[in-house]
């Protein structure tokens, strides 16, 4: 009995060798820990690992895979990057393909899956797939709007690492961002998941109009027992492409973001996360690069730490980038991962970066900002046009200065 209790309380982890040493994926507390070779040796792991004899510039496999399980969703959010609809796009991958994909990703050593859509709870095989991932040593996590959260899913707490519910604002603020009033749905889902013992977080897409209301949402999270809010940048993909110029943060908001977030974290004691696309807004405040590196605060690692599959199972470096020609399907990823030219726009950014990125001391951290935003502006290999430093150096002020 004591052993059972200890097993539930004590930390667990899995390790994978990488050129710098290795990565250890922890559960309880959940963390990805990057260690040097001496640390790996001291644990008796991978001594010496074959990968240590190589000069790889990207990981042997992603640490995380984002799977868009369906393009169906009843919500019709106006900025949906999947362009999801109630009937879907008609080319969704089959359950069999996703099963093969889970097996393939587990063989490669991927640690985490982020399952989404569309509305992933609408995929009839969601739970079966999540269980398959768990049985193969991966941690499946889930993003949902809260629509379609059934009893079966609520009974599967042990399967998922964490479930995040999309909630861009409280009350009427929700509709400001999404174009429909889904606040009660999202709040109800959060309460139901918490009551079932899930670890629950919030995904919050920050827009020009919701930025002034960010504190209200963080306060609501605190008051409702949600300890983690992940703040996401609005992306110009799918239906978001049409909305981008109206929704993207203003120049002033981009500069105010980090101080505002840290102020809210202190005030409400909620863990706040910023997505990778916001790295330029963080670096603009010139924090100690060693601290950023240690905390894993970084820009685009698409096709390196991260891989994505669209609802048809096609591979891309990130959910916001188009599927790459020739990379095929996610269930055959290991054949393509080391192919010359694969994911080149993101993997080679550091070597190919032009000014003002090239002379920026934060280039190895920020990695040029968001490739999807750059692509929207015409060139995936260009610096993120909304980076404050880029805007200053080029004299352009992408987006309006204030929220007027």
């Amino acid at each position: 009995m004591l052993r059972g209790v200890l097993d539930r309380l004590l930390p667990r982890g899995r390790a994978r060798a990488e050129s710098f040493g290795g990565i250890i994926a922890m559960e309880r507390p959940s963390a990805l820990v990057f260690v040097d070779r001496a640390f790996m040796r001291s644990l008796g792991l991978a001594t010496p690992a074959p990968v240590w004899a190589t000069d790889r510039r990207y990981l042997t496999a992603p640490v995380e895979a984002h799977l868009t399980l369906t393009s169906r969703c009843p919500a019709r959010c106006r900025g949906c990057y999947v362009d999801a609809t109630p009937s879907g796009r008609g080319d969704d991958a089959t359950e069999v393909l996703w099963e093969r994909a889970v097996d393939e990703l587990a063989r490669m050593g991927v640690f985490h899956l982020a399952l989404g859509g569309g509305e992933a709870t609408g995929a009839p095989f969601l739970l079966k797939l999540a269980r398959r991932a768990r049985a193969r040593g991966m941690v499946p996590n889930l993003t949902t709007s809260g629509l379609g959260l059934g009893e079966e899913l609520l009974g599967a707490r042990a399967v998922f690492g964490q479930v995040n519910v999309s909630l861009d604002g409280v009350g009427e603020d929700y509709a400001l961002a999404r174009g429909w009033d889904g606040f009660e749905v999202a709040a109800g889902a959060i309460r139901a998941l918490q009551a079932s013992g899930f670890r629950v977080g919030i995904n919050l897409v920050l827009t020009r109009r919701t930025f002034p209301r960010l504190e209200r949402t963080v306060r609501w999270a605190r008051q409702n027992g949600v300890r983690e809010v992940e703040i996401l940048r609005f992306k110009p993909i799918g239906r978001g492409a049409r909305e981008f110029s109206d929704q993207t943060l203003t120049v002033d908001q981009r500069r105010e973001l980090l101080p505002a977030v840290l102020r809210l974290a202190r005030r409400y004691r909620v863990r706040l996360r910023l997505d990778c696309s916001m790295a330029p807004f963080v670096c603009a405040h010139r924090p100690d690069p060693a601290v950023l590196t240690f905390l894993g605060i970084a820009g685009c690692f698409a096709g390196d730490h991260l891989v994505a599959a669209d609802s048809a199972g096609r591979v891309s470096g990130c959910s916001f980038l188009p599927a790459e020609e020739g990379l095929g399907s996610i269930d055959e990823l290991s054949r393509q991962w080391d192919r010359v030219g694969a994911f080149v726009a993101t993997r080679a950014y550091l070597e190919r970066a032009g000014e003002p990125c090239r002379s920026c001391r934060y280039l190895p951290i920020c990695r040029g900002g968001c490739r999807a935003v750059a692509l929207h502006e015409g060139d995936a290999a260009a610096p993120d046009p909304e980076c404050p430093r880029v805007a200053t150096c080029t004299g352009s002020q992408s987006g309006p200065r204030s929220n007027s």
Partner: protein
Amino acid sequence: MIGLFRRRGRVLAVKLGYNPNSSSLGADVTFLVLGAASIAILAPVVGALVRLALRRRERREEPPC
């Protein structure tokens, strides 16, 4: 002492929490409020937890990688 640390190795980076968001990679920025102290606090604690977790695993005779 330095030799001991070299033998035991270093924690290079820690990404706290999961990333359930299925469209981008998030990072916890809360520890930025502590600045460089976050490294001094987190590195030894996380290092010790990793050693505890993987040594338990080893004892249960599971393959390490």
